[in-house]
């Protein structure tokens, strides 16, 4: 059962490896938007043509492998339940837009879940690739190779002046969105991040919450990505983003040290209280869970909590999302039932660490 494979575990196989700077950078992602040259984009395309595109992906790429990305599975959106789609969104394997999608939407996902090629999202093709930790350059290189692999069989919509043509004017040119997921608890606690965001924006980069556009930064997890896709090369976009991420890492590390020096006891108290809440609560809302998980993760990074593995933040943040909880319970849950199950799962997960 291919679908079960993606549903069972909250944490994707690639997340098990720790990348560079993984105390602060959770993951790096490259997304490329591409379209077939002679078929209208999904929003204007006729159903049959879009079906043909999906059929094409099924015929040409299902069960194919490319380098480390093995045995691509094709999931058609209309075969999935609402909860299953939600789980895929929570694992960042598909976008909310694709989950809502009307016609012939699908996702082609590699077994290690590092690559997901969304079919008939806003564009015909949205290729996305994840790397653990801070590895933008590596991710770009691999994304380009995957892009070339697809291009062997597909005529892309491309224009000499405008570059890769996309449905939305905000993606035209490179069609690339590079983003980095960062855990910045010290910068968030000291509110320094609020002062830094405007200057990051000035560089054409955006700071968002964990679930992309419009989402708030829960549990001090921030997503930094490029806004501009036209008139600048992919390498330069990555260069700018890398520069900012490097600075954020440095500032976060400094802020952590300063917090330890100036209010070490208070910080230790906060971290252990959060740990206590996670270990003992019977009802917990997602917001509180996110804050406590962030604090515990900080405690692990600072060496205050030793018995818990670092990966717990990545895992529990996803595991405690509404979709995943309902997938686990195998039924629809009310908000209060979810809060209960969330508390139970977190308790049990922490028990496993002992």
């Amino acid at each position, binding site marked *: 059962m291919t679908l079960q494979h993606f549903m069972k575990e909250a944490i994707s196989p690639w997340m098990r490896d720790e990348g560079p700077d993984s105390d602060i950078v959770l993951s790096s992602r490259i997304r490329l938007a591409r*379209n077939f*040259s*002679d*078929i*209208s*984009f999904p*929003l*204007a*395309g006729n159903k049959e043509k879009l079906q043909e595109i999906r059929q094409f992906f099924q015929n040409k790429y299902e069960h194919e492998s490319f380098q480390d990305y093995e045995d691509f599975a094709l999931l058609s959106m209309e075969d999935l339940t609402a909860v299953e789609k939600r789980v895929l969104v929570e694992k960042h394997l598909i976008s909310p837009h694709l989950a809502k999608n009307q016609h012939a939407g699908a996702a082609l996902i590699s077994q290690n879940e590092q690559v997901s090629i969304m079919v008939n999202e*806003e564009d015909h093709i949205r290729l996305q690739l994840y790397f653990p930790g801070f590895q933008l350059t590596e991710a770009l290189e691999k994304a*380009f190779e995957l*892009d*070339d692999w697809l*291009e*062997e069989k597909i*005529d*892309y*919509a*491309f*224009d*000499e*002046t*405008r*570059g*890769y*043509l*996309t*449905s*939305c*004017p*905000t993606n*035209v*040119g*490179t069609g*690339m969105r590079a983003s980095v997921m960062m855990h910045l608890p010290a910068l968030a606690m000291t509110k320094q991040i609020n002062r830094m965001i405007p200057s990051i924006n*000035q*560089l*054409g980069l955006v700071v968002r919450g964990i679930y992309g556009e419009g989402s708030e930064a829960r549990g001090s997890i921030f997503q930094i990505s490029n806004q*501009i*896709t*036209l*008139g*600048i*090369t*992919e390498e*330069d976009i990555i260069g*700018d983003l890398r520069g900012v991420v490097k600075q954020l890492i440095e500032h976060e590390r400094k802020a952590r040290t300063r917090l330890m020096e100036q209010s070490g006891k208070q910080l230790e108290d906060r971290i252990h209280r959060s740990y206590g809440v996670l270990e003992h609560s019977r009802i917990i809302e997602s917001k509180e869970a996110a804050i406590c998980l962030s604090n515990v993760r900080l405690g692990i990074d600072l060496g205050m909590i030793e018995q818990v593995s670092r990966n717990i933040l990545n895992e529990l943040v996803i595991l405690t999302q509404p979709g995943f909880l309902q997938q686990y319970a195998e039924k629809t849950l009310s908000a209060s039932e979810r809060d209960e199950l969330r508390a139970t799962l977190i308790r049990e997960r922490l028990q496993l660490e002992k």
Partner: protein
Amino acid sequence: MECQDCHKRPATVHFSQSINGNKTEIHVCEVCAKENGYMPYQEEGYGLHHLITDLFNIDSAITGAQGSKQQFKQIQETKCPQCGMGLSEFKRIGKFGCASCYETFSSRLDPIFRRVHSGNTKHFGKIPKRRGGDLRKRKELDAYKEELDRLIKEEAFEEAAEVRDKIKALKGGSETGEKE
């Protein structure tokens, strides 16, 4: 201070732009600011489709004279031959229906791109391997030529000779394979 763009109206919009660390001061009149896409682009509560709608409306306001109304109407009725998207629909949803829309609405796109992409209207970046074969080669040649000029200026003749050979090889071989 007069507008640095039209040199007619007084400059009423002043700001400095910083793209990748290069700061430039800009003083223009409101009309030119809007025309050039210099007015600030707010993300929240102001969607892309508003932006695009506004840009078109400004268009008609600027060319407000009676004669141009006719022209505006004509443009408004333009429909994309491939997907059938009309200008009014494009304005409403702020998204293209197909690749051909870029040609259909091409005369209208620069201000939009400029505003969304920090003043840029042209692509610099990856070129598809198969489809962009020719373009790829041309861009590669341009890059080598620039390098050659630089090397000659620096009097690094040995390296320059190497680059010159690469250019020769690229120009000579019409075969599609990679250089070297």
